[in-house]
């Protein structure tokens, strides 16, 4: 009897323990999520302390009617909704997002519980290569389906030819029953908004800026500091890469490093310059930097690089500037690291991170990889500047993308997707995912003291905390109108791009002259576009 009572008591105690631990783990998981939501807030608090702005810390508005997401900090526009707006009115809806595997996608995926808990909307983020995004979005649009409600709207491969399948975001932004874009459209970097948000005119807004990789120059500062005097003695000028460097100087420096590395004088690198010159989209990007700085361009239609045009007009590649640029590019690649013709942007980054080359025109988002000692032998030895100038200016290729909403989704799904866009592109969210290697697309984020310190003071703690800080001063310089180059935005761009990099690859293989290459691209492009 006593034994039976003892058994019953034991079972009861164990059951109580189990129930309590379940409650406790439920509580801790919730608080864990809340902590997760406040990570950036805490981070922000910390950074603001160091930045001296003295805000009350992230999460101060967490749980309020207007901003259920948390993470807002002083200085950023707030996420605001109309009076009495129910953030959970779309609870139970599932949104599918298809996006390229880029830093903002990884950052948002890591913090998606913040959005899901605030709205009750479930979000599946599918991260794939860009060509898969293009294919799946195309299939969805063609079938008038909304398997994907939110789409990574690459301006050149998706938006240019399929803008009509996206919801006009102006309608949602101006809807008095819905929250509007925090800080307004004017808080987005304007050139990025125009190229990523519109097509053909600015009457309809199809997407909001999401990422903004830009090609700038990565260089080995240890090499440039160590051999500065030697180069000065031999060539008579300061070779440190900077805004005043010309492409001719770049060639001379790269050739000099090749020679000294071969002689065994320079041991840190094997080659002066490396390029992303594989038969791939990367080759078009790499060449375009030179083309723009020589005053050349692909087509004659006005605004083709920003708002875009259905008809790009006649090709301009037979003009002397383009031919001169092609001749220089062929000359430059003849002294580049031999692996250049096998490298796309990732291959080039890996070679640079392995310490093979001293100079590399590369997308600024690779700064995070270069500064990561587990992936790079050159961590702490890399500096960035804008690309060299040519006879007619400068070109830093822009490669940013926006996100938009599939118009074949149901009305509720569209409105739920709008809440996601509001959150995903909000300044406070951009600030929250900085640690994923994200580059903000909002002016307001750049004005924060933390960001200012990180960008402008390489010795600061903020600089060390933010992987991309090393490249962002140069990237911001590259975004200026006089420095940036934006490729043609026209529906037939994938075909034209293929013609360009295929013919350039033939040129680099010595199969045709630079002049013939430009003429061949012009001939094929004009035939394709009917001009």
């Amino acid at each position, binding site marked *: 009897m006593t034994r039976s009572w003892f058994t019953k008591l034991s079972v009861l105690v164990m059951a109580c323990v189990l129930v309590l631990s379940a409650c406790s783990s439920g509580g801790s998981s919730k608080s864990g999520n809340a902590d997760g939501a406040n990570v950036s807030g805490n981070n922000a608090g910390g950074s603001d302390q160091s930045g001296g702005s003295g805000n009350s810390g992230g999460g101060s508005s967490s749980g309020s009617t207007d901003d259920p997401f948390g993470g807002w900090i002083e200085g950023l526009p707030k996420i605001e909704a109309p009076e009495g707006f129910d953030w959970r009115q779309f609870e139970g809806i599932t949104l599918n997002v298809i996006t390229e595997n880029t830093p903002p996608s990884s950052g948002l995926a890591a913090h998606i519980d913040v959005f899901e808990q605030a709205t009750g909307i479930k979000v599946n983020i599918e991260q794939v290569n860009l060509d898969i995004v293009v294919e799946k979005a195309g299939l969805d649009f*063609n079938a008038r389906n909304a398997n994907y409600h939110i789409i990574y709207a690459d301006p050149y491969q998706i938006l240019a030819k399929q803008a009509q399948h996206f919801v006009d975001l102006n309608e949602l932004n101006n809807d008095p029953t819905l929250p509007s874009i925090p800080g307004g459209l004017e808080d987005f970097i304007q050139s990025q908004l125009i190229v990523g948000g519109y097509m053909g005119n600015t009457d309809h807004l199809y997407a909001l800026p999401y990422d903004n990789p830009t090609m700038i120059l990565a260089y080995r500062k240890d090499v440039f500091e160590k051999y500065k005097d030697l180069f000065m003695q031999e060539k008579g000028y300061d070779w440190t890469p900077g805004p005043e460097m010309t492409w001719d100087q770049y060639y001379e420096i790269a050739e000099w490093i090749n020679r000294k590395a071969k002689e065994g004088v320079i041991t840190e690198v094997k080659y002066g310059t490396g390029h992303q010159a594989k038969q791939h989209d990367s080759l078009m990007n790499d060449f375009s930097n030179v083309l723009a700085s020589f005053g050349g361009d692909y087509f004659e239609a006005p605004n083709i690089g920003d708002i875009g045009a259905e008809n790009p007009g006649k090709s301009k590649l037979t003009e002397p500037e383009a031919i001169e640029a092609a001749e220089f590019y062929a000359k430059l690649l003849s002294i580049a690291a*031999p692996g250049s013709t096998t490298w796309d942007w990732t291959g080039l980054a*890996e070679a640079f991170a*392995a310490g093979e080359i001293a100079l590399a025109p590369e997308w600024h988002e690779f700064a995070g990889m270069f500064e990561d000692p587990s992936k790079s032998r050159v961590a702490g030895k890399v500096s960035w500047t804008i690309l060299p100038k040519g006879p007619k200016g400068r070109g830093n290729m822009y490669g940013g993308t926006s996100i938009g909403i599939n118009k074949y989704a149901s009305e509720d799904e569209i409105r739920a997707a709008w809440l996601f866009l509001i959150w995903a592109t909000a300044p406070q969210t951009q600030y929250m995912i900085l640690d994923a290697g994200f580059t903000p697309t909002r002016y307001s984020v750049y004005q924060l003291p933390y960001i200012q310190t990180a960008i402008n003071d390489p010795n600061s703690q903020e600089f060390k905390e933010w992987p991309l800080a090393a490249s962002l001063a140069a990237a911001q310089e590259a975004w200026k109108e006089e420095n940036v180059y934006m490729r043609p935005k026209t529906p037939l761009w994938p075909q034209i791009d293929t013609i360009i990099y*295929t013919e350039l690859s033939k040129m680099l293989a010595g199969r045709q002259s630079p002049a013939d290459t430009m003429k061949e691209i012009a001939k094929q492009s004009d035939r394709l576009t009917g001009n």
Partner: protein
Amino acid sequence: MEQAAIRPLKRRAKWNRTEFWMLLPSVIVLAAITIFPFFFMIYASFMDYRLDMDHPRFAGLENWQNTLTDETFWQSWGRTVVYAGGGLILQLLLGTGIALLLYHIPKFRNLFSTLVMLPVFVAPIVTGLLWRFLLDPTYGFYHWIVRQLGFDVQILGDPNFAMLAVIFMDVWEWTPLVTLIVLAGLQTVPEEPLEAADVDGANAWQKIFLVMLPMIRRMIVVALLIRSMDILRYVDTIVITTEGGPADATKTIGYYLMQVAFRFQDIGSAAAVGLTMLVVSTLMGRFFIKVLKAEEA
């Protein structure tokens, strides 16, 4: 007498009805996955049909005209002949050679056969990744060996070597399949002709070329049939390693088709290109089946 003749016929007709109903589900599935797409391809090849269009429009022979007058199309077929021809010849020679070696090593034959077969089990995409890493100019082991031998060659970046490299990758992956088929054939060769050849004083080479290989010709043709149909559409390693470059040196017809369909999203033209591949595959298949039938006769 008459009744006796009619009864089996009736039974046969009844059996045919049962057979028909039993086969019907398979036929429907087959129709859904092969016959419908085939007719859809024919339909699409006559339509202006791109993924960014609202509705496909009838285009007559335009897709066919554009495809057949496109230089890249014919150049891609030319490269496919080199890729497929080179690959098949090497696979046949190496596969038969390895099979003969394995046949003559009775000890540990199963172990060696398993080891030889390993590449076949690797997914083609993984094969591409593997070779891309091995030939990478920055950290590729094989590239390093080539450099140590004094050759500063960019194997995947040089049009003269890139095609050889992708042929070699195909050979590495699929030679074991040919080996397996030929080895299976060799194991069916009866002992008597070989003993007779011994009695006649034939040496090892004569036994191989005059007795064994002629007896397994059918198996070799089957191996060629399987691989030739496969190699025409095989693009995985090319996509991963060279993407058709450099200077279009590895742009085979399969890669060209993929580019037209998925990069340019021109379904109409892609259907026309695909149908030309279907015609060539069918002709090749018919040729090998004819050879097989001739062997049987």
